[in-house]
């Protein structure tokens, strides 16, 4: 074994250990519980679950809702990506930032916003959509249209306009230019965005749980119900495996779709909006309204008590709610959330940086390349495994020495860091991968040691993406619900958990507090993401 390979493995050791202990072990433990119920391999009970009519219905609903939501998100996102990234108009940056807000909103907040909007007393209650599959799909679209705009818009912005102009001078109308030149060039980005959105939709937890209850369940919420309420662990394990298989297959497909003929990129000046842009502009306004209405209705709802404007819901955030619905005050939960997010952030960024360094270094030998490829896939695993599975697995495996972390304050941040890890890695990898290795070779040939060359070559381009990745991880941690709902201690809940609990308790004050707490959480995450947006790192949210 040569020295390079040894160095690679040494660098990879820490993240492999972290992901191994805190991810593979718990998920494995969860699966073991299902397939080895009494220590003996007895998969029968687990496999039986897959034949239940409810399981088939849940799987069907998962795929159907994800497919419909993905289609709608792509159809709405494409014209908006064009308008926001290809044309110029006043307040473009503001509109762009506004449309990205849903992307970072905690899922619970989105769920609350849609219930407030579509509920019987809500502004759109007359549509009778509350509790229907349509509401779930709308929620999923709301959450994911930003992903499409971001990924496709980024690709569209860098697209060389001259290919389209060449087609136009050859007689292609704008529609024909789009169909024959622009769309083929965008296809990798669209496929990539659609896959990620499908993935997010198929594993969505908070939205489905708040909007669908027990009537409409996806695999993810079903795993939650099976473990927490029914306590049928083998069934939950079987569903986890099913989900893992589907998601890994999707990730492989997404990876394939990304490998395409290089598209020539050239920065281009955004065009002034013209009358020919009528259709995309109308679609963008629709998206804007679609994004703004639930948020406005949420904020408006939080400011009303008994049909009158009031700040009472916000004043109540310092209390534990009507009939002591909570163990701690909402403000205390916010403090908990922030403290947890700080820990989760340094863990995710530290691990993510090591991972990014490992997978982007240029390989010299086939063995090295294969090892790197394996590691790359390994570190993406948390993206594919349900947060619920992870949370439950952590709970049941890390309960005995030497790893008895059940009461440790670090367990929740660890789980959240693992959820955020793939996103941090995806933010850093394109930047690190974009550095020409010859720059480092030039530094080395001028006498710089390995550390020195990192300082002169990598750090100057990396610090902004690092900060952006940290902010991203922070926002993800603030909103994380699936894993946290298992792991958080009763006396140390985070804000999303408190919101969910308030929703489950009767009483108008509790509901009003849930709205106000959602606004508070949304404002906090939006603030963090606005700071990230200011860094203008394009790889944030690029998958």
């Amino acid at each position, binding site marked *: 074994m040569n020295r390079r390979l040894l160095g690679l493995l040494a660098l990879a050791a820490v993240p492999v250990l972290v992901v191994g202990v805190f991810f593979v072990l718990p998920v494995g433990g969860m699966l073991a519980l299902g397939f080895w119920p009494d220590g003996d391999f007895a998969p029968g009970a687990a496999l039986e679950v897959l034949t239940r009519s409810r399981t088939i219905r849940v799987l069907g609903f998962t795929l159907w809702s994800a497919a419909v939501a993905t289609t709608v998100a792509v159809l709405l996102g494409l014209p908006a990506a064009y308008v926001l990234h290809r044309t110029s108009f006043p307040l473009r940056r503001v509109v762009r930032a506004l449309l990205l807000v849903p992307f970072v909103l905690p899922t619970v907040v989105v769920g609350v916003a849609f219930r407030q909007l579509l509920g019987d007393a809500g502004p759109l209650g007359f549509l009778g959509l509350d509790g229907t599959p349509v509401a779930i799909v709308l929620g999923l679209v709301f959450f994911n249209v930003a992903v499409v705009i971001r990924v496709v818009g980024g690709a569209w912005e860098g697209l*060389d306009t*001259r*290919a389209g*102009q*060449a*087609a*136009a*001078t*050859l*007689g*292609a*109308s*704008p529609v*024909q*230019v789009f169909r*024959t*030149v622009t769309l*083929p*060039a965008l296809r990798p980005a669209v496929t990539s965005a659609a896959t990620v959105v499908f993935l997010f939709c198929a594993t969505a937890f908070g939205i489905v749980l708040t909007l669908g209850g027990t009537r409409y369940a996806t695999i993810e919420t079903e795993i939650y119900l099976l473990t927490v309420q029914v306590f049928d662990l083998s069934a939950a394990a079987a569903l986890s495996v099913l989900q893992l298989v589907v998601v890994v297959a999707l990730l492989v497909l997404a990876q394939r779709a990304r490998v395409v*003929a*290089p*598209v*020539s990129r050239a920065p281009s000046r955004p065009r002034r909006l013209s009358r020919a842009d009528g259709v995309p502009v109308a679609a963008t306004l629709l998206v804007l309204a679609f994004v703004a209405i639930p948020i406005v209705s949420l904020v408006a709802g939080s400011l009303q008590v008994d049909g009158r404007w009031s700040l009472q819901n916000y004043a109540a955030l310092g209390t534990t709610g009507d009939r002591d619905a909570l163990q701690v005050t909402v403000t205390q939960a916010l403090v908990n959330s922030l403290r947890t997010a700080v820990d989760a952030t340094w863990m995710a960024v530290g691990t993510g940086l090591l991972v990014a360094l490992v997978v982007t270094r240029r390989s010299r030998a086939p063995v090295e390349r294969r090892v790197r490829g394996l590691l790359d896939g390994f570190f993406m695993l948390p993206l594919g495994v349900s947060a619920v599975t992870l949370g439950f697995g952590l709970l049941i495996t890390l309960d005995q020495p030497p790893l008895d972390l059940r009461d440790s304050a670090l367990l929740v941040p660890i789980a959240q860091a693992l959820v955020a890890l793939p996103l941090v890695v995806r933010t850093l990898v394109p930047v690190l991968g974009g550095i020409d290795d010859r720059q480092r070779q030039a530094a080395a040939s001028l006498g710089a040691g390995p550390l020195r060359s990192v300082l002169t070559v990598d750090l100057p381009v990396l610090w902004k993406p690092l900060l952006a990745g940290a902010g991203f991880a922070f926002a993800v941690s603030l909103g994380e619900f699936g894993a946290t709902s298992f792991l958080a201690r009763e006396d140390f809940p985070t804000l999303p958990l408190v919101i969910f609990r308030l929703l489950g308790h009767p009483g108008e004050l509790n509901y009003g507090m849930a709205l106000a707490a959602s606004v508070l959480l949304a404002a906090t995450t939006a603030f963090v993401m606005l700071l990230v947006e200011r860094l203008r790192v394009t790889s944030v949210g690029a998958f």
Partner: protein
Amino acid sequence: MLSLRGVTVAFDGEPAVDDVSLDLPDGQVLAVLGPSGCGKSTLLRAIAGLEQLRSGSIAWDGRDVGSVATHRRGFVLMFQDGQLFDHLTVARNVGYALRLRRVPDLERRVAELLDLVGLPSYGDRLPGTLSGGERQRVALARSLAVEPRLLLLDEPLSALDAGLRERLAADLRQILVASATTALLVTHDHEEAFAVADRLAVMRSGRIVQQGPIADVWRRPADAETALFLGYAAVLEGDAAARLLRAAGAPDGPAVALRRSALAVAPDGPLRGRVVSSRLTPDQVRLRLDVPGLGELDAVAPLDRHPGPGDEVAVRVDGTRLAPIPGA
């Protein structure tokens, strides 16, 4: 016939193309020659309908095309780097415009075009596998496919290396003449302009400073700067110009431009100069001469005579290699 009247294009208030008027009769090739950044590519894009005019008009056969969208103008623009569609094969690139128009017998026409540009049997290749010269040939075939009423060429050869450029320039001229295509070419290379065009317009800082049949422009540059840009080696003014013109036996004038070979070493020459440096080339000996009253100038000597630095030589002036310049 293409007519431009007072065409002005501005970016952020700064005019890039300033009050340009041009005429291009059918079947002719016009080269717009100018240094980089003079606005010639912007002019081309404006004609194609890719830039908005601030003022002026662009007309074809007397009909204004200003409000006609790019894809309806029937002017095809061939980009500097070809802009082939990388996801389509060579044949599909060439047949692109034909397919848009649902032209029958498409395969035969594509094969003809590939023959015309000297790339038969390239149809199934992808653009990524072609060399720079091949890409430009494919781009040319694609541009000619629909027999555009006007072909716009943006520095079609400048991305290629020198030898290839010369060969392709000759081919381009031949193809344009054979297909009787009206074409407008912009370039910064006067050799390319001479090789391809019938007419020449010289552009500087967004303005057309001179235009006409190519030989006329070349023989009578409008001013010193134009002369230097057209490949003249030096421009003399006032007394120096008068002395040189007298030595050449030409009528007097305020200024004169001379080519590098205008002075030739000859025992009976009327001028004398001291050799500053000399360099052997395959065709002749190139000299720098210090001629009293004229300054340091280029000159040539036949290969059998090779004067060294410091030598005094007599030179004669070849009147056909001079160009008088009106009031510099």
